[in-house]
């Protein structure tokens, strides 16, 4: 029931961080397993969707961290650039500008990246994001504005 209700929302949160479908599928399944095994630690202090988002996003960030430390991509792929890799992905149907936006987001630090995606795509309130990331609302607002500035600069540089 819980899986059916929240899987799609959680999948997109994970996918925007991890970027490929295969990796997102693995990360999401791991997140559900973690949620299942630690279900007794959920005391209802927050909404179950918030608790699940926290687990899924942490799992996705962990995954990207590990990938950075042990890159599986070949040097050819790295030289190709993330935007070009996305354009070649069967499960990406965006145009070049959308691929570049994903590349710009991927370059942001973890908190800025997460707050930008939750705010920009999911239009989530800062109070809700604060519960997921465990950061103050003021800090999140600052992170969001820095993220927006960095993305704008990325496009100015590439124009």
């Amino acid at each position, binding site marked *: 029931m819980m*899986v059916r209700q929240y*899987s799609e929302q959680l999948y997109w949160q994970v996918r925007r961080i991890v970027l490929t479908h295969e990796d997102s599928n693995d990360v999401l*399944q791991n997140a559900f397993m973690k949620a299942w095994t630690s279900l007794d630690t959920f005391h209802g202090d927050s909404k179950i969707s918030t608790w699940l988002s926290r687990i899924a996003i942490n799992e996705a960030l962990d995954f990207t961290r590990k990938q950075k430390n042990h890159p599986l991509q070949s040097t050819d792929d790295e030289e190709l650039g993330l935007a070009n890799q996305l354009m070649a992905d069967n*499960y990406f149907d965006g145009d070049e*500008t959308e691929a570049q936006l994903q590349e710009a987001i991927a370059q942001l630090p973890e908190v800025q990246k997460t707050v930008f995606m939750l705010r920009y795509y999911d239009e989530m309130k800062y109070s809700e994001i604060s519960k997921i990331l465990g950061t103050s609302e003021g800090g999140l607002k600052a992170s969001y*504005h820095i993220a*927006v500035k960095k993305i704008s600069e990325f496009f100015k540089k590439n124009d």
Partner: protein
Amino acid sequence: MNEDVLIENKMGKRNPFTVPQGYFDHLAEQVMQMIPEEETLTIRKHETQAPAKKAILRSLRPLFYAAACTCIAVFGVATYLNLDSKASESQQLQSNIVTVHSYSDSYIEEAADYAMLDNDDIYTSLLADM
């Protein structure tokens, strides 16, 4: 105009990612299939751990028996030695008592004889010695 509005105007908020057809229909099933597997694995793990413990105990059984035998032997010898020393001690004590007892009887008799001597007996005995 805010920079995020500029980004929105330029790129929109469309989700550029896609998933295989019917992915979300099967996702819940896929996850639910994983949960019993994990649980079975945990149960199996417990099941394999228990026989492993039993096997270790079984292999250590001769050692336990040997240790028990040694304990019994040591205890038996110690008890025997303890009893033996006690018996000899009591025997020695008894002989001491008997000696003291016999010694004291003869001494008392002699003392009594000596005590019953009067002056005439003493003169007689002195004259007899001369």
